């Protein structure tokens, strides 16, 4: 029973994936209204030659803050998991 459900759902998902791959825009010709603005204005607005870095730290800097936070969270989590077990008294 469980196996059948798994197989059916996997089949549906693979069908969806292939449909996506066939329906999506032709490879190499994406729409680019937002990115064209960035490519044109990165030098005058941020002064960075590297458009990717200007996206990472300026246009979408908040995402990067979140990303740095995720790394911080994971490090905190890993250190927390492997913390030394001390006696409760000397916390």
């Amino acid at each position, binding site marked *: 029973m469980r196996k059948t459900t798994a197989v059916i759902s996997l089949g549906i998902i693979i069908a969806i994936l292939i449909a996506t*791959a066939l329906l999506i825009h032709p490879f*190499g*010709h994406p729409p680019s209204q937002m990115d064209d603005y960035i*490519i044109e204005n990165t030098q005058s607005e941020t002064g960075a030659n590297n*458009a*990717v870095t200007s996206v990472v730290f300026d246009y979408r800097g908040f995402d990067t803050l979140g990303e740095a936070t995720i*790394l911080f969270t*994971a490090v905190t989590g*890993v250190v927390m998991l492997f913390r030394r077990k001390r006696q409760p008294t000397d916390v």
Partner: protein
Amino acid sequence: MTGTIFNIPFLAVAALVGIALYIIISQRNLIKLVMGITILESGVNLFLITLGYRAAGIAPIYTNAPEGVMVLPVPQALTLTSIVIGVATTALMLSMIMLTYRHTGDIDSEKSRRMKG
């Protein structure tokens, strides 16, 4: 449907994601489960990066840039974010598996499982 033949990168994405989901559903070994998630992540990252490719484009960096159209910068930034997130998730999952192994001596999801129902 024109240009289907050029959509091979997207089909590769579909293959990667499909394989990954198969692994996630079928495998009982926890390490293999994490591998499945990592492959899924690679598939999605590949998807994002292929979205941004423009035919015959150059990297969107003006330092000593040759003439030509530039590929889209935003998908590259998104992929960078996604990769770092993937590293973070994988690290945490593997740590949990290490500790589970210490407790139960097994990394089989059925045998190390305590809670049911």
